[in-house]
């Protein structure tokens, strides 16, 4: 074994604490880097990857079974522009009776298997249906009904369908039916209100834009009897929804990854340079016995790189494993297949970067000692620190505090460089905690703004009938606007509701038809957070999201002209709202803005406190089966935000631990240097408790300084990242209220977190110092 390696290994054995701290910090750093980078890479376009894997449908079309036959539809699969098709599958509204009497109306499709050329399904549990009484349900349906494989679902009385046993749970990437069974289990009903429809999925040659998809849909519809096409949907909406959530994740993960890597690099640099400087005497001795400068550097590099490598080797797999639950949750949120995600290139680069920081810091820190003569290095390493912090020590000593406190306080600034490193470590820890807490609070507000679940618990839609524009396809017509409104108003649990109708208008520079939603009745309670201005209060006033203002180059207070079927509507823009529907190019206005006597298509209902939304929806659905009653899911928003918050909490915890290790390391180095002074103080009567107090006091001041700087740094980071997330995700500005999440109590807690990080980092070395033997230390002088 070479002398260099022998010396490196001997030092590792002798400096166990230093070795363990380096390994621990590198473990945490590589863990956080791997976790963040794996999530970052795996979060990139999960919809696109899943869509390609499943041969997802670019276009799904629903046809009236009463107007077209299966064989006619089969021929439409060969329409020019279509490269593959699946179906037609019969779809029937299935009325499921819950044990508590409530009825759910869910679309049930007849399909002979999960595979096929288009829209392949992934079975996440159980198997495909093999008998007429067996059904496979979607993950969303399973979540909503709380149903598992093996459960039975009872059909409501009068339903042509039997009671079904759930034999599987499947996921697809498109607008899937709620359940599937064998094709011959789905009856062909054309006479009652609940008519059978046909569903067909198509993959197209060109499907990048809505226009391309629409043109093929028109061509498909042209070859069959008029009125046969009930509805057509494309994959772009689902993609937009998924991409929006991931686009929120990506800047956040990027920022956090960069922050985590920088913070880790800084603390590693602190750790390594501190350890090298503390070993200056050893360097002198090595040189005096014949080690060349290069060999000295090699010994030090070995001391640092061996534990660093061990830490990284442990941290990378733990980081990869830790990222899997997050990836699994992401997949679940978007109903995507779950896969084991690894990003070997990104992880390798991340860890390589961390090890490079260790190497560079070691080389830089050891080069000074390497250039010193042997005698100088020994003298420098042996001499007690002098000349630093005397004035500060005297100043602090004059404070009316117990002497242990003032001694410690005076010590805290004795070594400016190390003090700066310690403050920086605490600052990073506090900034991380501040940023994470703030972002978590803000994201809760963003989530509330997106889901509006506190304001609106139930949506009701009514149809103008098959072929009409309003309401969901496959829902029969029958109940007028007035009747529907009266029915909702009559429900005792209705707190308030608003009726609405959406029309498309043309606005200059919008570049596309702009959905204009008009509300009947007081609607300011609907829960769209205001960025600037106010909610509309009168006919002719409108609010719009940031993207609308940006796209149309309009400003608050401007009057725009919206053309509705050739008629100009003049709208004053009175408010900019936080709204992330569609691509955010939309307008919301008062009912009176619409010309003529429009009928409402949808109703948003707020329930009285304590009312179950599902129970309410069940009651309403039972009373009017022709209405679409929906308790809104949130399109994975909840899961996505829980995911972000969990990632945030995990990474923040790791960074706080790294900061803690940074403080710990500094205090270990300080107490090692101050061993003689501590022994003297103990010899002249300082009890162990005061020794601990003194060392804690030496970092308390730094904790306060670190917190004082870390809190505004974290708040600035919070504001910038949140703003960036809004801009990247959906070109939206962020309401000021989303930033103002730091209460006085929270700020006090954050300041306390700084002191806590400092104290916790110092506690162990303080206790070691308190337990050290006076005579041993003084005799080694």
């Amino acid at each position, binding site marked *: 074994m070479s002398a260099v390696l022998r010396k490196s290994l001997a030092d590792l054995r002798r400096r166990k604490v230093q070795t363990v701290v380096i390994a621990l910090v590198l473990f945490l750093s590589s863990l956080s880097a791997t976790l963040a980078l794996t999530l970052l890479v795996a979060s990139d376009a999960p919809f696109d990857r899943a869509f390609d894997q499943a041969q997802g449908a670019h276009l799904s079309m629903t046809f009236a079974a009463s107007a077209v036959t299966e064989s006619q539809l089969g021929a439409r699969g060969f329409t020019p522009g279509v490269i593959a098709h699946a179906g037609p599958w019969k779809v029937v509204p299935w009325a499921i009776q819950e044990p508590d009497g409530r009825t759910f109306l869910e679309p049930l499709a007849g399909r002979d298997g999960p595979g096929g050329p288009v829209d392949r399904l992934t079975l996440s549990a159980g198997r495909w249906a093999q008998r007429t009484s067996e059904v496979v349900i979607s993950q969303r349906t399973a979540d909503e009904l709380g149903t598992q494989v093996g459960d039975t679902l009872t059909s409501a009385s009068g339903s042509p369908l039997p009671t079904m046993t759930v034999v599987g749970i499947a996921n697809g990437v498109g607008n899937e039916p709620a359940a599937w069974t064998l094709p011959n289990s789905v009856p062909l009903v054309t006479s009652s209100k609940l008519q059978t429809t046909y569903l067909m999925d198509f993959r197209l040659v060109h499907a990048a834009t809505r226009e391309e998809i629409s043109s093929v849909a028109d061509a498909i519809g042209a070859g069959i009897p008029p009125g046969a096409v009930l509805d057509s949907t494309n994959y772009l909406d689902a993609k937009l929804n998924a991409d929006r959530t991931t686009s929120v994740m990506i800047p956040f993960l990027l920022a956090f990854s960069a922050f985590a890597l920088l913070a880790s690099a800084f603390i590693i640099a602190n750790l390594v340079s501190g350890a090298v400087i503390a070993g200056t005497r050893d360097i002198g001795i090595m040189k005096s016995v014949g080690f060349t400068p290069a060999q000295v550097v090699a010994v030090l590099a070995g001391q640092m790189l061996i534990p660093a490598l061990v830490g990284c080797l442990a941290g990378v797999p733990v980081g990869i494993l830790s990222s899997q639950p997050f990836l699994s949750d992401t997949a679940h949120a978007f109903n995507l297949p779950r896969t084991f995600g690894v990003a070997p290139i990104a992880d390798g680069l991340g860890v390589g970067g961390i090890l490079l920081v260790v190497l560079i810091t070691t080389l830089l820190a050891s080069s000074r000692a390497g250039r010193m003569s042997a005698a100088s290095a020994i003298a420098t390493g042996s001499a007690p620190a002098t000349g630093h912090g005397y004035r500060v020590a005297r100043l602090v000593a004059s404070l009316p505090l117990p002497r242990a406190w003032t001694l410690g306080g005076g010590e805290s600034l004795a070594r400016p460089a190390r003090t700066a490193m310690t403050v920086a470590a605490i600052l990073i820890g506090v900034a991380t905690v501040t940023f994470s807490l703030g972002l978590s609070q803000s994201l809760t507000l963003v989530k509330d703004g997106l889901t509006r679940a506190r304001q609106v618990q139930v949506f009701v839609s009514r149809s103008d009938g098959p072929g009409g524009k309003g309401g969901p396809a496959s829902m029969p017509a029958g109940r007028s606007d007035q009747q529907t409104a009266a029915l909702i108003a009559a429900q005792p649990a209705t707190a308030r509701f608003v009726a609405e109708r959406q029309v498309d208008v043309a606005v200059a520079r919008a570049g596309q038809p702009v959905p204009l939603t008009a509300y009947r009745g007081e609607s300011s309670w609907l829960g769209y957070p205001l960025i600037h201005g106010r909610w509309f209060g009168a006919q002719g006033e409108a609010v719009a999201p940031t993207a609308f203002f940006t796209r149309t180059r309009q400003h608050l207070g401007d009057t725009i002209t919206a053309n509705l079927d050739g008629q100009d509507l003049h709208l004053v823009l009175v408010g900019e709202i936080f709204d992330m529907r569609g691509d955010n190019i939309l307008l919301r206005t008062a009912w009176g803005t619409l010309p003529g006597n429009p009928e409402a298509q949808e109703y948003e209902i707020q329930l009285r406190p304590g009312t179950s939304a599902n129970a309410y929806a069940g009651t309403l659905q039972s009373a009017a089966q022709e209405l679409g009653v929906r308790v809104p899911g949130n399109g994975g928003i909840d899961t996505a935000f829980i995911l972000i918050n969990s990632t945030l909490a995990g990474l923040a915890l790791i960074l706080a631990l790294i900061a803690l290790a940074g403080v710990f390391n500094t205090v270990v180095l300080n107490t090692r240097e101050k061993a003689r002074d501590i022994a003297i*103080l103990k010899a002249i009567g300082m009890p162990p408790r005061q020794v601990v107090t003194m060392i804690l006091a030496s970092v308390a001041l730094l904790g306060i300084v670190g917190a004082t700087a870390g809190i505004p740094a974290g708040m600035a980071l919070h504001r910038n990242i949140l703003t960036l997330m809004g801009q990247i995700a959906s070109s939206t500005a962020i309401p000021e209220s989303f930033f103002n999440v730091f209460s006085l109590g929270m700020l006090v807690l954050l300041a306390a977190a700084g002191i806590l990080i400092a104290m916790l980092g110092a506690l162990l070395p303080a206790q070691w110092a308190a337990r050290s033997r006076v005579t041993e230390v003084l005799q080694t002088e």
Partner: protein
Amino acid sequence: MGQLVELTNVSKVYSGDRQNVALDSVSFGIQAGQVTAIMGPSGSGKSTLLNVIGGLDRPTKGTVMVDNTDLDRLSEAGLARFRRTRVGIIFQFFNLLNNLTALDNVLIPAQLAGVRAGEARRRANDLLERLGIAAHRDHYPARLSGGQRQRVAIARALINNPTLLLADEPTGALDSHAGEQVMTILAELNRGGQTIVLVTHDEQLARASASRVVRLMDGALVDDRDETVRGMVRVR
């Protein structure tokens, strides 16, 4: 006059690769007001004995009574209180805190003991005056000579009016002139009634300043002589 220090069968064994007996069943007493010199060759256990008497170290076996306190019964905190109120310790290499001025070094034990600031400062200034280094009170140790540093250390040892003053080779790091000055100070203190235990390897110094000389060899007490009567007191 009663025994201020009473050691009974005190042993100290350091365990390492092999056991090292630093003190081997040492028993003797020290009367109040006495100057006792502990002598012996290097590694004979002199400093260990001083450490055990001063509560800086615990014996492996035996009892140490100082000023009617059984040190074995004291916790670490109790020993710290004992050291700061009952004993003052002077080290060969002074052991001053380099980042504190002479005055602040002297003040520390009083401050740790909770003596009021004004009273502590008065005592410290008096001591620095008495020891002839008042002019250097605001100097840091690095700017003081060896003799001046040792006088600061003596002032620090005396600030809480200890009943026992322990001096471990107090002139070992000083030139002869400074050494004489320090010994003169210790003699004056003893004339005032201060009990002193002095560890030294300097035979002449021991004979000149101590009323009693205790000799150690390989951790065992081999000679205990009262220098005032030039006769052996006892060896157990």
